[in-house]
């Protein structure tokens, strides 16, 4: 969101969408964009800091105008859907309209669905590596990320959510940490989150999806050397947005694709 806001304001690269006008309170967006411009880690959204931001955007080609609202929800908000099996009424209302879904997955993650048989084959010959620790009981927080994501999408197929066709832009963030040679983003999802991939491919009648690999910072801002190099670049050119159509710096591409499905 911070990188997108900077890119729209700076107009230093060609983008699918441009900023049409400034309206309303932009304090939150300006604050996070300022951090991003300095190559500093943008604070994650906490449950208390959840806001809905609005951007007045115009298509670069065609010129049609739209107001796009982004409910910037915390990760905890979605975890609570999984663990408590409840959601905010505002979340349901936010999905009433014709908008699409930006589904974020980080590429900078540990594999969380390894079975004991999988682990045994990984550590073949090194029995000490698979020695048991004290077994721990099950809790919802142990549900693997790909299962949680499928569950979140499945909720939308049942009341009280509006049923119907939706577009889902799957954003694989921290794309810069994916090892070279990098696969296509959709192939990454298929490899790393096969259950989610199958779910998306099997439900194309209600969920039309497109996968993007996004590096909003362009590299590791915790590394002094990387940060120094990143600061030398035109800020918007730090952004990488990779899709089946190729690579660009245009972070508005996924939003434009979602808008076209409305």
């Amino acid at each position: 969101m911070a990188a997108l806001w900077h890119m729209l304001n700076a107009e230093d690269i060609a983008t699918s969408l441009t900023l049409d006008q400034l309206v309303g309170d932009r304090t939150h967006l300006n604050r996070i964009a300022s951090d991003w411009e300095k190559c500093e880690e943008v604070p994650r959204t906490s449950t208390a800091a959840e806001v809905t931001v609005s951007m007045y955007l115009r298509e670069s080609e065609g010129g049609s105008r739209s107001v796009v609202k982004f409910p910037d929800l915390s990760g905890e908000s979605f975890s609570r859907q999984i663990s408590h099996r409840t959601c905010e009424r505002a979340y349901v209302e936010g999905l009433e309209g014709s908008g699409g879904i930006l589904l974020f997955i980080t590429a900078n993650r540990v594999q969380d669905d390894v079975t004991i048989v999988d682990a045994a084959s990984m550590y073949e010959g090194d029995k000490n590596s698979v020695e048991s620790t004290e077994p721990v009981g099950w809790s919802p927080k142990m549900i693997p990320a790909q299962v949680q994501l499928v569950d979140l999408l499945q909720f939308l197929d049942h009341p009280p959510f509006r049923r119907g066709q939706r577009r889902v832009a799957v954003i694989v963030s921290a794309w810069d940490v994916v090892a070279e040679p990098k696969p296509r983003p959709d192939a990454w999802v298929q490899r790393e989150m096969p259950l989610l991939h199958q779910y998306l491919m099997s439900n194309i009648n209600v969920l039309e999806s497109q996968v993007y690999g996004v590096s909003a910072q362009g590299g590791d801002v915790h590394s002094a050397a990387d940060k120094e190099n990143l600061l030398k670049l035109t800020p918007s050119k730090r952004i990488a947005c990779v899709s089946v159509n190729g690579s660009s710096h245009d972070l508005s591409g996924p939003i434009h694709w979602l808008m076209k499905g409305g």
Partner: protein
Amino acid sequence: MPLSTRLFAEKDIEGAHMVTNIDEDVEVEEDAEEVNDVASSDEEQDDRIRLASGEALDTGSVDQFLLKRDARIIAIVGEQESGKTTLICSLYDRFCHDSFSGFSFAGSDTLVGFERRMHYSRWISGRSTPETLRTSASESIQFYHLALADSNCSLCRTDLLLSDRAGESYVAARDNSDALSGLIEVAKADVLVFLRDGGRLVIPNQRAGALYSARQTLRAFLDGGLIGADTAAQVVTTKYDLILSDPDKEHVMGHLQNANAKLYESFGDRLASLTFWDVAARDPKGILEPAWQVDQLLRSWTSARVPPRAPCQPSQLRLINEFDRLLVRTPLNG
């Protein structure tokens, strides 16, 4: 009262035990104001909406499911520790890794239930050997849901409801025909899958018991009228990895083949089909691939001929008013 056929709850003696999904159903059928009426007080305070539980389905929830969508009911039957839950979890586990048996995962209403059962076979549990949380005798019957899409036709979808009940119930039914009436999943099954514990076949003093349990159970189900000429029955020998690694495996396999031949001779003509399968859902040594030969079993479940469900006959319903009686004058099958 919906007019469509209610498959389980009207007959099920255990149907009232679990009501966790009833609120979900209320959300499906009622408007938002009425949902608020059933919400707990703390939910009213923070204005939160209840979502589907994701747990395994009880019989009432299966009824609700079948009102919305057709599904194949696969009754997984077997004695304690024969591998019922492990077989079900192995299927889910395969789809967590990749498409399987020519199918892709298209959804599940019981993801939380699967995850709960899978826990002790996951690395995160802290165990060094995989284990499946047993279905205890105190738990009522549960169903696990898998929606599968044909890999060559993503919109060709098959929904499976896999039953899981404590083995003690099936032992009781084998021993006493009075216990048959509670086995609603067997009576309603599109495919009856009897699991024979391969682990017991390699133990000489347990082999005969393991072989004859299939025979006695099938006979009890047939003689009790629970299954019959329209039933597709399968006898599945589980934990086949233990048989393959047994020094006396030729001898064990000989016993198994003889027992299967006798089963077919005795019951083959009383059933729509009687087939025999060998699987290893989870070889702890990792010699056999995970869900070894389970792919073929899954394929058979999705391709089995399923007779159409009988529609509910109006005469079976209590017709209270003139509007209800209109039903009697309305052709139901077009």
